[in-house]
């Protein structure tokens, strides 16, 4: 049995193909662009190709994310909150708190012992506390987004970025550069700012061990460290943190497919 979970984020669309034993067979990440339906289809086609399968082999497709309603091939949709919780729990059943920082939003989810959602909080009204914040800062500093993590680890002096608004923070960063602050120190300050924002949201729903960080920003080691320091705990970071939502969607798809099977068999 094979199922697919598709997560249409505002910046990237992800698909995960899973077998009847919950093993990940293939996964794909493509830019969403302006047309989420097409991106979903693209991600879907890629995982099929990588697995060497045909659409007829797929028992169930479940979509999630911002563009979940636009995936014509999906049988059902669930929110990314429910799916991230399930995906994280599948990767590690000890997880009870999930912190997801995506391109344009961030969320904190508290899990029950069964891996269901107990509580959640979202930040999606404002860029601060999201990947977008880091993008804007990287531009202001004239560095590659991908280098921010490693550079921040070289910081020696504490520099604070206190503005809550991304636009204000950008101005703040520009004046810090003009004031001859070290780039590494500024980046570390930026990471602490995002960690404060997201960490506070997480504390709001209550931190329970173990805590997993997901989403593209989890690939930035500097943010991970800053968040660990803010929360006072080590974070679990999966090898591919961006696909956790799609994985969760795939696991739900599997549950649905197995139920249908039982019904049909009976």
């Amino acid at each position, binding site marked *: 049995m094979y199922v697919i979970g598709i997560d249409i984020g505002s910046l990237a669309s992800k698909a995960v193909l899973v077998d009847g034993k919950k093993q990940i067979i293939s996964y794909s990440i493509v830019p969403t662009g302006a047309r989420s339906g097409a991106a979903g289809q693209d991600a879907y086609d890629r995982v099929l190709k990588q697995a060497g399968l045909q659409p007829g082999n797929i028992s169930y497709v479940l979509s999630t994310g911002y563009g979940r309603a636009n995936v014509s091939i999906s049988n059902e949709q669930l929110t990314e909150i429910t799916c991230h919780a399930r995906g994280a729990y599948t990767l590690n059943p000890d997880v009870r708190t999930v912190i997801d920082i995506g391109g344009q939003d961030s969320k904190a989810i508290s899990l029950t012992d069964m891996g269901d959602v107990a509580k959640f909080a979202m930040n999606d009204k404002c860029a601060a506390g999201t990947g977008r914040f880091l993008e804007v800062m990287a531009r202001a500093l004239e560095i590659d987004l991908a280098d921010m993590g490693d550079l921040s680890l070289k910081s020696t002096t504490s520099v604070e970025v*206190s*503005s*809550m*608004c991304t636009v*204000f923070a950008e*101005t*703040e960063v520009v*004046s810090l550069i003009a004031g001859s602050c070290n780039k590494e120190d500024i980046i570390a300050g930026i990471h602490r700012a995002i960690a*404060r924002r997201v*960490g*506070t949201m997480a*504390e*709001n729903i209550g931190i329970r061990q173990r805590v997993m960080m997901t989403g593209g920003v989890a690939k930035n080691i500097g943010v991970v460290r800053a968040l660990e320091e803010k929360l006072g705990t080590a974070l679990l970071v999966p090898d591919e943190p961006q696909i956790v939502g799609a994985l969760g969607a795939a696991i739900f798809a599997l549950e649905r497919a197995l139920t249908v099977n039982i019904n049909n068999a009976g």
Partner: protein
Amino acid sequence: MEEKKKYLVNRVKTTKEVQNMMIEYYSGLQTAHQDGKFLAWTFGPIPFEIMRAMDIRFEHLESYGAYLAARSGQQRLKELSEADGYSNDVCSYARLTRGVAMLHERGETASIPNVLIVDLPDFLVAIRHCPLQGSVYDYQKRLLNKPGFCLDTMPIHSEEDYQESIRYMRRQLEEFIVFLEDLTKTKLNFDRLKEIMGYVKEGAVIRKRMLNLCKARPAPINTFDHFISLGPAHTQRGRKEAVEFWKRLEAEVEERVNNKVGVIENERFRLYWHNLPIWFRVGRLSETLARYGAVLVSASYTHEGFYAHEPEKIDPDDPLTSIAREESWLSWLSSDITQGAYLLQKEIEDYSIDGMIMCSHRTCQFVDVGEYDLADLITRKTGVPNVVIDADPTDPAFYSDAQTETRIQAFMETLESSKRRSAASLQK
């Protein structure tokens, strides 16, 4: 070669004493219980005199918030309260207080460097001057599960309302005293209260005289200095030490007036500040203004409250009426645009004010509503221009140095060019 001065602003020396006074005061709030005293957390311009007469130590929300912000101690406290579910739209003072209570809950009261964390209270006292102070008092009281008393104020739009308010306040003060006596199992010594009121009056009269000295040119003292020396007018009033402080400050300011020593060397613009100060930027903003030859000569916060209005009418033998009059006056100022407008117009004339800085605070909304109307009205009537800046009293997340300095610079350019224009028209 002349040495480049580190600071443009020639600050008065006496105000340095305030820091020690406040450290002593906050230490007293940390050790209140050890010292066998009752400790109250208070909100709003409450009648401290009564608490002082009963030897009850009191923390004050707004003063403590100012202290925390000035020492950069507010970040952790804000985060704690926001983690507890408070939106950052909520009054920054309220978030700080909640943060302090949470530090106690977590046993982390020593965790913030450079600040003294006050002990948890035995009870809470508030006066609903800013209406939100009632709500802050109420929910904090429920969370801390302690007894409390909240005084009410009524909005005032006429002389009749003002007289009704004095009666209304007086009755409540009597009930407040009963509450305190029941709680502390002691009786209020009225003679002690009269003595304290005597010091309040003495201090307020001297302070008023000194505020008036700012009418001189060049201005001998910066209103930013008045902001940071509010302690003796506020939480410390009624103490003999506060009166001594005002005497010394008045002497220093008088000397400057006599010798024509100004706060800045080349005084070109005299400004007014409307609304609360930005507690974490007091020093820096005074330097910023000084760069343009501007000095702050007056402000709503310092010149209109804290018994600055008719202190000679305080009657130490009738402390409750005196207190009721002051609270009612504060209420009148904030309820009705006409009182505030009248005072401001007078100040513009008396202090030779060239421009008004209207500070709009993001989470401290009480004075914000109607600020635009007031600014428009005064500018229309007097021709004195105004600039609006966006800030918050204690939360730097809502403040941008760059944005503020741009607006101030633009404002100074406006003042500069209108000065040039009027000089040119005089030449013609």
